[in-house]
């Protein structure tokens, strides 16, 4: 039996924008456009299983404004926060390079959200407001890719970081397998989608 009961979904936001606004350009601007793109993403999610892992790819987006970042990143995460929706949804945002980073960080901070983002090829970061303990716990899992339940006490020696690890699982920036109890870095789980 697999340790990962997650339906993988690849979402190319650049092409969704072009389809949504019938533009030659992949500018993710205006709240109306952002809302339409988020609805298109929701539509893709609705066709998947109850637990999903989505790679939301912003690589082909040229301009991302704050209104669209609010819709396509913050509101998407909010809608699928634990206890909010019928689905267990995990997201990794790809192509969060310098031109997009500020807008995404601002909306995450405004809503008190966290997100895993690929900020340059092969480099993943935890964006949003996080405590030092959460940053330590996330980095530990991210560096190793996979942490067994029995390794936690060794790798995270202070109780605060161990508590933070559970918080991060609850906030869907780390996946804990309900089968093995192992902690997975989302960056490794989306490997197959990249």
């Amino acid at each position, binding site marked *: 039996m697999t340790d990962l009961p997650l339906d993988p979904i690849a979402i190319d936001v650049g092409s969704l924008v072009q389809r949504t*606004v019938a*533009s030659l*350009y992949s*500018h993710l*601007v*205006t*709240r*109306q*456009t952002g809302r339409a793109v988020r609805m298109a993403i929701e539509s893709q999610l609705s066709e998947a299983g109850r637990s999903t892992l989505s790679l939301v790819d912003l690589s082909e987006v*040229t*301009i*991302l*404004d*704050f*209104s669209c970042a*609010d*819709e396509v990143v*913050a*509101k998407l995460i909010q809608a699928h926060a634990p206890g909010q929706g019928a689905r267990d949804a995990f997201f990794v945002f790809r192509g969060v390079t*310098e*031109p997009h980073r*500020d*807008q995404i960080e*601002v*909306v995450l901070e*405004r*809503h008190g959200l966290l997100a895993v983002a690929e900020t340059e090829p092969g480099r993943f970061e935890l964006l949003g407001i996080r405590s030092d303990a959460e940053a330590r716990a996330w980095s530990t899992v991210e560096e190793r890719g996979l942490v067994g339940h029995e390794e936690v006490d060794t790798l995270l020696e202070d109780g605060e970081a161990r508590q933070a690890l559970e918080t991060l699982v609850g906030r869907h920036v780390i996946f804990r397998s309900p089968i093995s109890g192992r902690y997975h870095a989302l960056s490794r789980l989306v490997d197959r989608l990249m």
Partner: protein
Amino acid sequence: MRVIAVPGSLDHQSVDGFLDASLVGGEGKVLMDARHLRWVDPNGMVALLAAGSVIRDRGGVLPRLELPESTDVQGYLGRMGFFDAAQGIYDIEGPPARRGGSTSDVLLEITPIQANVDVHSVVDRVQARAGAILASKLGYPASAVVQFSVILSEVCQNIIEHAEAPGWVAAQAYNWARRLGRNVVVISVMDLGRGFRGSLGDEHSGRYADRWSDATALEAAFLHGLTRFPDSGRGQGIQQIRRQVRRWDGAITIRSGTARIGQVPEWDDTPPMVDGLAPFPGAQISMILPAREEA
């Protein structure tokens, strides 16, 4: 016939006086006398359109525009798309045909903003031109075109989401050799909608009681990020525009109704708040982005 004399220099400094003057007097025919106009920036051009629209809507007749005597100013207005935008606003006798000249020196012609598609159009156009102008005139890094586009997108959306009325945007680069010793980019965005006081009134006027005014509405939106929407993700557009303008050591001011509020850098002596202006409809936003000092 009521005659409104357009000042010789119509820019961000003189635009409030001009808009105030356009409201004086009653109905009837109006002549907008721009013969002595020698200098006009995007604020001036868009203000001419805004004032003409208000006069037209009040009197039911198109005001007549007497063109500047300066052929240079006429040519510049043409390159900025003023005469196209003025159709249906002014009665202009023999508006000069747009000369075949290039508009390559224009950062953003006067562009009407009525729907989301217009914002996309602005961003598309700016993408094609702004990078070179921001780099060569202001010394900004190539990546600045992204922040510049984001600013324009957010400020134009402000018209669609809050004004609920059409507006215009325009931008151009200038050499402010005498005034500042540097190049600048001037951006103007104006609408004739319900203004900040009207937009925020239903949600926020209660807590201000009898202090509620154009000035307090501007403070609420500009300084505190209040919006009429209950969603916590809203209201950040102006805050982020302010932040980016501050990073570039630029100035931003917003007039709405009888007040104008501003975030001004050290090089600008504009007061942070002006009250007691004439109750001009909508909102008028001016931004000035200076070249980096070492550029």
